[in-house]
């Protein structure tokens, strides 16, 4: 397709109805997605489901800079939802660019002219990316927020360290991580457990925190540990590793244990133990022992899907202080 004007004209034409009026375009943000061919299908599906609650212009860049020949292929579509009894159409736009060869090394020259003015730009990278690649940095510099998924990284510890460094770099967007977003129900639930004042001692006299995670869940577990430690003002003093188990001595005499479960079937679990009480939270159950009394009940902490996680991230703007603090501790673990 012809350049930027051609794309804009075509998008407007797609909103033109048979009665000569235009369907409305509603947008609250620009969503810039960088992915490779393998993820293209999933990305498109997630975005079309998001359009109802986060009407936006999505610009999806599928790049392959290793391809021998230069090629640009443009696909555009509008998604019109029909809310309310009167069935008015509200449309979101999706522009997908397949870029191969030399041009794929400077994706920013495609993204810049397509971004809608006056609206924030959120960049989402569903796959593993290299934060150091120059093309990536120029692109990221255009965004207000960058959303990654640390679980796609081959080496979680390394990813945490890179991301912790990125957070402080001037000129770079605020960072978000879907693994952190997935912890939101856990953080909210665990924080609320310690709202009753009579449980204050349990936090002050913390002895042990144990996190059991699924094989792919190390990043999430590190962030959860980072969150608890940073919120309670603790930091790692020594570490030990044997196989899939990690053990740390935190300041204040607290022991932290991370252990990988044998399979995906077992539910992730967090154990928080003090002298007088213990709190055991897993995906489906809560077990509290306080003195000699034990209570158990059902809770609901299953992780939402990628679409919901991304949707949650899109409602947040600015700097996520609690995340950055957790990330910094996680990077030291």
């Amino acid at each position, binding site marked *: 397709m012809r350049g930027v004007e051609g794309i804009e004209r075509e998008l407007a034409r797609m909103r033109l109805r048979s009665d000569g009026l235009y369907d*409305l375009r509603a947008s609250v943000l620009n969503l810039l997605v960088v992915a490779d061919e393998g993820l293209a299908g999933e990305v498109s599906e997630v975005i079309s489901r998001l359009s109802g609650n986060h009407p936006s212009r999505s610009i999806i860049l599928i790049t392959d800079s290793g391809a021998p020949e230069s090629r640009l292929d443009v696909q555009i579509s509008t998604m019109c939802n029909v809310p309310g009894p009167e069935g008015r159409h509200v449309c979101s736009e999706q522009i997908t660019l397949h870029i191969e060869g030399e041009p794929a090394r400077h994706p920013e020259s495609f993204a810049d002219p397509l971004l809608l003015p006056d609206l924030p730009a959120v960049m989402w990278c569903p796959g593993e990316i290299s934060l150091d690649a120059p093309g990536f940095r120029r692109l990221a510099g255009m965004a207000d927020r960058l959303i990654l998924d640390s679980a796609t990284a081959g080496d979680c510890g390394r990813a945490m360290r890179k991301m912790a460094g990125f957070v402080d770099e001037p000129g770079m967007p605020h960072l978000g991580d879907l693994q952190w977003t997935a912890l939101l129900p856990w953080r909210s639930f665990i924080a609320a457990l310690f709202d009753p004042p009579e449980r204050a001692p349990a*936090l002050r006299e913390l002895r042990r925190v144990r996190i059991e995670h699924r094989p792919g869940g190390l990043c999430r577990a590190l962030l959860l540990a980072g969150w608890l430690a940073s919120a309670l003002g603790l930091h790692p003093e020594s570490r030990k590793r044997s196989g899939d188990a990690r053990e740390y001595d935190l300041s204040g005499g607290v022991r932290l244990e991370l252990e990988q479960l044998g399979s995906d079937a077992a539910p992730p679990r967090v154990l928080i133990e003090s002298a007088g009480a213990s709190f055991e939270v897993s995906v489906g159950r809560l077990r509290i022992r306080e003195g000699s009394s034990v209570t158990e009940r059902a809770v609901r902490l299953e992780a939402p899907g990628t679409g919901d996680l991304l949707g949650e991230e899109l409602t947040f703007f600015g700097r996520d202080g609690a*995340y950055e603090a957790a990330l910094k501790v996680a990077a030291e673990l």
Partner: protein
Amino acid sequence: MPETFENTLRADERLPRMPPPAAMVIFGASGDLTARKLVPALYDLADRRLLPPEFAVVGISRTRMSHDEFRSRMRESVGEFRSGKVRDDVWGSFARGLYYLPLDSRDPAAYDELRRFLAKLDREHHTGGNRVFYMATAPTLFPVIVERLEAAGMNEGEGGGFARVVVEKPFGRDLASARELNQKITHHFREDQVYRIDHYLGKETVQNILALRFSNALFEPVWNGRFVDHVQITVAESLGVGERGAFYEEAGALRDIVQNHMMQLLCLTAMEPPVSFDAESVREEKVKVLRAVRRISEEEVNALAVRGQYASGWVWDREVPGYRSEPKVAGDSPTETFAALKLFVDNWRWAGVPFYVRTGKRLAKGATEIAIQFRPAPHTPFAGDATGGLEPNVLVIRVQPDEGISFKIGSKVPGSRFRVRSVNMDLPYGAAFLEERPDAYERLLLDLMLGDATLFIRADEAERSWEILEPVMRVWEREEPEFPNYAAGTWGPEAADELIRRDGRRWRRP
């Protein structure tokens, strides 16, 4: 118990607003409001993970039931009165904290039993001495309940916890009874412990009026009498009274809609920007509007107020009966189903700008809107015949259905001649988000547990609203109405048109 404890895990701005642990006592637990609104809203909060893990509900009414019978009754209501499936796991953990005590709210001994029960919940559910007392029962019982609560020492939370009372509408039926009720309640609880609930303010669409006005610098400079010719506020229903005849006979349009919903819309439209969005700042500005509303003398009532009652007529494809033929309505009922008023807000901003407000049942369609009619442009440089179809600007805030704004602006007609005419620009901003909005009760229950009274009615707000309407009610009581005076499916009585036509204006068609 340690008095200063800060849960540092909470220092995370992205965590949802979750209230502290608490026990909610519902007086009137076997009643309609509990089944249709309160428990379903609490369940939805639990489902959204917005209720604290340590939370309990104690239902009270005279009907004999065990805890389990109450639970299964509530489970049925939750299935019936909200859309969407009830999740077993969510219900299970919510119902764990659901209790019922068969007690008579008039019986002093009942309150000792309640107090003991709440102490037990503090131990077993860690509800921390925090209590919310919800009056979902006949208004005549409110004074008795607050008095007994104080007598039993429950007007303060236990061990430093909080105690709040929630009072349902109606807040009296005239100024005297509203004052009396407020005095009785505040004799036993401080005003800052009292939450008067008008679910209208819990609606997202109503709150959006504030967002539109105070987050857009564009509107505020022209939001005054220098630019605005007049304001029209309409709350129109196409429905009749249906099954609520008995209730409506006692109320009428003035009490049912004007005193609360209409006055709230007037306040939100006319108020000054509050310094902050906290309860005192917002409510203070609203009360200032009510204080500025010009007093109507009894002599002026017939010139400034119109009432109506529907006769039979056609609404859409159905012929519907007149009000006096509705079930549980007197054959010669003098109750008004329509009211229109011309009000003035005598302050610097609004001096001389009339606010025409109207509400009615069985009107041509259901619509709630606020229309700001601007003055004509002071001078048009175009030749007289060039501006034939041009009318002054109108900004309409549509509250329902299809929440949004529309704006009428002048625009050039394409062609070689210079001709301008009015074009309606429609922006259904509500439609930009398909996200399901929380029910009004959900929002308000959460706010009240969090101790945020911004969206609740302050005593003086309720009283001042009654005071404005007092002369109208007196004259209408005294004088025999000529009812019915409008056909169902029309826009109300002829006299309402006359009320505004006299000023050289006319009602908009919403």
